């Protein structure tokens, strides 16, 4: 596990990880977004041979974070699953049993189209609009935050898979996945490795944490760095 950075918001301690999760200390919860579980299986079932190990490593990564923090709850802010049920999701069910004591709360995203029975079987509490706890609100897409509720909570969301472009002199540039904190809400990076990036344009008052991927040439692990 890599060294997290602390971001305090509304007096809550949020530990941001290069593994693309947030550990919310006061609530003993892991916040995560856009896991897209079952995506490799969905592709493979249609004859597109993407490697399944991407999915396997994603599950292992989440398991490692759970093992480390021993959370009472995981809050997924949408797109936990990529598409229809497939065998890879049976694998998830088995994985889920290993953490049966951890509550799993899913705020539905546009990709979460499985049947209520399936979620029940997986012991996942599904919330279709938004979830609130303490000073925080949780929703998949910030565009859907109800106006009257907007200022009552600080919101956590996902959906866009945010990335940031850094530019240096001599035409240098880099794209990094990021945690994006604005005044009223935060957008989490996509947890799944099988996702792309959508570049954001942060404003001056925003806070951005970039995730620097592992650099194998130097055997350096991924790390997280506050960019602004």
């Amino acid at each position, binding site marked *: 596990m890599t060294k997290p950075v602390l971001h305090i918001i509304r007096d809550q301690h949020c530990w941001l990880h290069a593994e693309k999760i947030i550990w919310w200390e006061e609530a003993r919860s892991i916040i995560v977004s856009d896991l897209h579980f079952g995506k490799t299986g969905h592709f493979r079932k249609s*004859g597109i041979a993407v490697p399944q*190990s991407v999915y396997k490593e994603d599950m292992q990564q989440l398991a490692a974070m759970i093992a480390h923090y021993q959370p009472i709850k995981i809050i997924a802010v949408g797109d936990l699953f990529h598409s229809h049920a497939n065998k890879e999701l049976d694998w998830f069910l088995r994985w889920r049993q290993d953490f049966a004591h951890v509550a799993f709360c899913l705020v539905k995203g546009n*990709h979460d189209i499985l049947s209520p029975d399936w979620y029940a079987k997986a012991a996942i509490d599904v919330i279709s609009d938004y979830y609130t706890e303490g000073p925080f609100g949780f929703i998949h897409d910030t565009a859907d935050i109800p106006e009257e509720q907007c200022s009552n909570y600080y919101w956590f969301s996902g959906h866009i898979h945010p990335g940031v472009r850094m530019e240096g002199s*001599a035409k240098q540039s880099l794209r990094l996945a990021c945690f994006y904190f604005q005044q009223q809400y935060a957008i989490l990076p996509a947890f799944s490795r099988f996702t792309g990036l959508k570049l954001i344009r942060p404003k001056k008052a925003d806070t951005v944490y970039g995730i*620097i991927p592992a650099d194998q040439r130097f055997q350096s692990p991924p790390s997280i*760095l506050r960019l602004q």
Partner: protein
Amino acid sequence: MTEPGFTIINQWLAGKGFQAFPFQEAAWRSIVDGESGLVNAPTGCGKTYSVFLGSLIQFINEHPLDYAKRKNNGLQLLWVTPLRALAKDIGRAMEEVINELGMQWRVGIRNGDTDTSERAKQKRNMPEVLIITPESLHLLLAQKGHPAQLETLHIIAVDEWHELIGSKRGVQVELAISRIVHLTKQPVSLWGISATIGNLDEAAACLLAPIEKAPVIIRAQMDKQIAVESIIPEEIEKYPWAGHLGIKLAERIIPIIEQSNTTLIFINTRGMSETWYQTILTVAPHLAGAIALHHGSIERELREWIEESLHTQKLKAVVCTASLDLGVDFRPVDTVIQVGSPKGVARFLQRAGRSGHRPGDISKIYFLPTHSLELVEAAALKNAIHAGTIESKTPLLLCFDVLIQYLCTLATGEGFRPDEIFAEVKKTYCFSEIREDEFRETLLHITQGGDALQQYDEYRKVEVDEGLYQIKSRRIAMRHRMHIGTIVSDAMLKVKLLSGKYLGVIEEYFISRLEPGEVFTLAGRNLELIGIKDMTAMVKPSKSKKSIVPSWMGGRMSLTANLGEKLRETLNEVIQSNSPQIELAALTPLFDLQKELSHIPQSNELLIEQISLKDEHHLFVYPFEGRLVHEAMAAILAYRIGKIMPITFSIAMNDYGFELLSDQPIPVDDSNVQELFSTENLTADIQRSVNASEMAKRKFRDIAVIGGLIFQGFPGEQKKARHLQSSASLLFKVFSEYEPNNLLLKQAYQEVFDQQMEEVRLREAMMRIQQSKIVLQYPTQLTPFCFPIKVDDLNRNHHSSEKLEDRVKRMQQQLESNTR
């Protein structure tokens, strides 16, 4: 030649006042004798007749008494053509002959435009001649029952083989032929028809490989006179800026257009062709209605109308791209203008040949430079034409993406048995070196989706049933059929007016950067973007004077090695000759400045310029080897310098040289520059620098589409398939990390090796440089040579030997110091 076929055909020709050319008669003889081979003839001199009439003669000889009455003979002649626009004209010409001979043969056309009822009719009852594109040929193989349709076949003709060979479409043709020659009752003759290329023998061997026959090569001896004239700007800009000069010269072409019957104006990119069309109308409004714009993104009906109008001499000039490189001749065309570098001698000659086809006519071509340095290229082109050096088209080898697609095609149709298909595939030129284990890996890829024994896996594509490999899922089969082909276009959006009128297509890459309300140019019209919905850009006409011209990423070809060499030699003239060619003489002011600030390299020298401006450090290198080789060489140099110290480069190149740009001083001087071009450890350094570069990633996009990993969008399917979409760069990342041995990923690297970092050619170039004198200059300001590289910013590559984290931190510091 007393057989009845010859007599009848010669009588028919005589009746029309024609006489067969000797090369046509030679081709007929060989066809009747059952030979196979290649006819080398330019367009517009009866090459179609050389093979088509041979096929008729053969038939008449076999049925001398009732050849005119025989109906429903089944398919006799398969005519493969790379351009569907050609099919109609060729078909019409063939039908004319058949009718005049009173025969009952039918001519069918099969391509993407053929409607389903026509296809069904062909399925029940094949015409004697089928004109088909390589893609439709594979679609035919994806149909059940195709063996019965092909069993009567006598001749396969591959038209414009010089266009197909060296591309993946050529590989497609090779594979289809390897199958079809085993489906006929009688041995098939194979005939390629090709314009002149440097390796005609290899081209013939490549085509004929599946039938293992020695090729007969028939050359039409038709020497074409070509007159080349450069349009020389009155004032030479000393800092050439790609694309800027050309437009200023637009006025100069108006008199050329006016004095000519019909003029074709070839522009290298679609974006520039839009600009040119607009500019000509601005400087010569009286030409409105008499000029047209023709390129691949323009709606088909409009394109067909333009072609028709060219035939009937209704147009004074057409601004076009490679879209009019091929095809039947437009008789009225007597003048061609080439705007910008044609990148190769062969292409230049081909374009020149689009004018003045009648025997004895002179092909007239004007060269209009888009920046002043291109005048050197004009001089080099003239030298090359004079010396008669024409490029070769090297056939591609071991294209696994095309093989994967082909095997899935067979699996969609009748299904296949691996042993039989392996033997056939191995006989093709492309796959002659394929090993059994590689074929097995390909089979595993399509049956198990790569690494086997995955848990919870439901991979489904090709299924094996008692040794027969088949695609059984109707959905997967349908999707495969819709994606047969090897031409990978960028993701395209349709452009429509609010009324629903369709205007053409545009790259998603371009349009996604526009905001609604912005104005862009397509098909010569200014259009305001209203919004994007369901893969369609809705627009309305705009009167705005300002508009953004789309940049089509494609169409940036590289200078050929051949022309590069001529270019280096031509530069010698600048210094050595007392009476240099007119183009070079015109460039005197530019050369004077280059000499003053730096140096003009001779063909036995390599010029390197190091220029430092503020916190930017540039290293410009001028090997004159073409963009592709420069990209590879730049990557190797960046890698080697990166070993001296951790440093990050941004890399740009054009056909003359490349630039390494860094925010730190670049540690290159007289003491180590020789070593940077050393051929020692070259193989290992190529390997390492390829891995670090972005070249393979760019190759991977085409491969992923051809190999069936990415679906190019098509109407109606988007919504259903949206959970199956991913970008090539994402797939590249995923495979690199999780399945580095993946067949298609390996191919991306292999293509970089073979096509760009071709060790032999790179080694030759490096050896040439080693034996040259390296001239290192430290100009205090930008030079005429480096300017076009510096301002041409598309496709920058990056190479870094720094730790990622350090780079991010330094950029952060730079940002902070900038804002302070």
